[in-house]
């Protein structure tokens, strides 16, 4: 590559980084603006203020934000754990065993993944009200499985195919049963794939808005995105912009850190499942 060409690709890289970070930088800047500063028409605050963080963490909006944060963490972790457990067994079977219906399971996962979420919400809204699951944790965990389980099955089967299965056979030759070979040999080899799948599944659950806003009504189970969407200030005279920005940054930073730490694996997980690499 010539020097000129290389410079252009470098410029392209810088533009991409800027493009990706700009809206986050904007939300961060907004979250540090004092209420009087919100409408200053410029990107940066004139003076940095922690007022918005005080509002959502200890102030008037904390009883909206903090329960939502707890709900989101709890519900997403449980949904991720359940779908990873189910997907682990399914992906093992798909990658390892020869049985009819393999393709049926993968196609079903695909169909579920492209299923319009709102079509599930409408009937669930009615049924959940009748059987008392409306506005509860299980009432969200169950539909969240429709988001997390298909991607978990796909991603994990892709990871599991890369595992050197001869090692399992070697263990079986040494007298281990199928189950022992799975637990003692395969689980340690499969752990990175499971972990990556869990991160991706957690992202998807964490990002949900449709279920969160439709199947909850109070802070008993309302997750963060829904709480943000409905957040309209403590009183009608208070502009919620700053508080929303602060809350948005708080829920974004941990996820972004997770991404930065495990970027290589996440990219592998996202693309392995989608395109044969």
């Amino acid at each position, binding site marked *: 590559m010539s020097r000129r060409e290389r410079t252009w690709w470098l410029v392209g890289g810088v533009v991409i980084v800027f493009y990706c970070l700009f809206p986050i930088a904007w939300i961060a800047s907004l979250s540090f603006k004092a209420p009087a500063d919100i409408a200053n028409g410029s990107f940066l605050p004139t003076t940095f203020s922690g007022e918005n963080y005080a509002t959502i963490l200890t102030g008037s909006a904390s009883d909206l934000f903090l329960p939502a944060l707890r709900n989101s963490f709890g519900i997403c972790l449980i949904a991720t754990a359940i779908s990873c457990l189910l997907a682990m067994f399914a992906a093992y079977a798909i990658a390892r065993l020869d049985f009819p219906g393999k393709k049926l399971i993968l196609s079903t996962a695909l169909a579920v993944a492209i299923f319009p979420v709102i079509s599930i919400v409408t009937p669930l809204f009615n049924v959940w009200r009748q059987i008392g699951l409306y506005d509860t944790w299980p009432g969200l965990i169950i539909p969240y499985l429709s988001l997390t389980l298909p991607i978990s099955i796909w991603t994990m089967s892709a990871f599991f195919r890369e595992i050197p299965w001869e090692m399992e056979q070697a263990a079986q030759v040494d007298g281990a049963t199928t189950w022992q070979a799975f637990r003692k040999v395969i689980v340690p080899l499969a752990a990175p794939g499971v972990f990556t799948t869990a991160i991706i599944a957690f992202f998807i659950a964490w990002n949900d*808005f449709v279920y969160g806003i439709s199947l909850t009504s109070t802070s008993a189970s309302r997750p963060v995105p829904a709480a943000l969407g409905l957040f309209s200030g403590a009183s009608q005279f208070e502009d919620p912009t700053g508080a929303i920005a602060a809350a948005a940054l708080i829920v974004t930073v941990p996820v972004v850190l997770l991404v930065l730490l495990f970027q290589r694996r996440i990219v592998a997980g996202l693309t392995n499942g989608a395109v044969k690499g």
Partner: protein
Amino acid sequence: MSTTTLPPTEKTQPVSAPKGKISDRSRAERKLGWLLAGPAFLVMLSVTAYPILQAVYDSLFSYRLTDPANRSFTGLTNYWVILTDQLWWTAIGVTVFITVVTVAVELVLGFGLALVMTKALSSIRPVIRAAILIPYAVITVVSAFAWQFAFDINTGFVNSWFAWLPGVGADTDWFGDTWTSLLVICLAEIWKTTPFISLLLLAGLAQVPEVLQEAAKVDGASWWQRMWKVTIPNMKAAIMVAVLFRTLDAFRVFDTIFVMTAGANNTESVSFLAYRQTIARLEIGLGSAVSVLLFLAVVLIAVVFIKGFKVDLAGTRGDS
């Protein structure tokens, strides 16, 4: 999607193998296979097949939650009401517009991103890859707020930064008109989902054999010619998968619209229409009918892609 869910045909056993033993073992393997994969399969079916069947059933009734006593069977009336209503066709128009614009822009932009990632020096590649994952990891609602606040007449900076553009001034209300609202909605969607497309395309780019590129170069093909005649045809599968997934995803657009306009100024998508009928107006019957129609639209898109463009999902997604 029924066409993709056909079970694979049985593999023929090697003739020389001792019969009794193999079939015993393979029977045990089948049993174990379904034992392990069965629970996941059942859960997937029960969280989607059951609700959609329930929605089909509910859609045949005139049923308001506020007036449950007057629930009555009305057959296909709900569908007739929807399909003859301007609201539905506006929602379809908005949804198709957002889908076509975002997928087209994302494909071009995502391809550019993927190219830069393959060409960039290895020292800055991890930085780009990390940056590219950030929009993917940001909650859609947060991204919607970021873009909304940026364009908002009070809180935004866009009006003062771009005042030099014709038609933009301090009092430009981006959310006061259908087209400008849709523009900002599309911008937010594009920002958020381009990384996903670019990662899929990057994986596709990696599959283009280097030998072909070299051969074309030797034959004197220009950069453009190599791009159109070698690179793109060789990664067609990856492109189609990326487009199919993003199309179906974009067709469900909801979060950004909810945050930015709440459907004001004719910016309601089909998902939003279904939400408003069911959750806000408690019209279970009508809302279910909208949901069923949306589901059918998604199935139709998937079938057109898989049959018409011959996207082999099982093949590209790697079923051994």
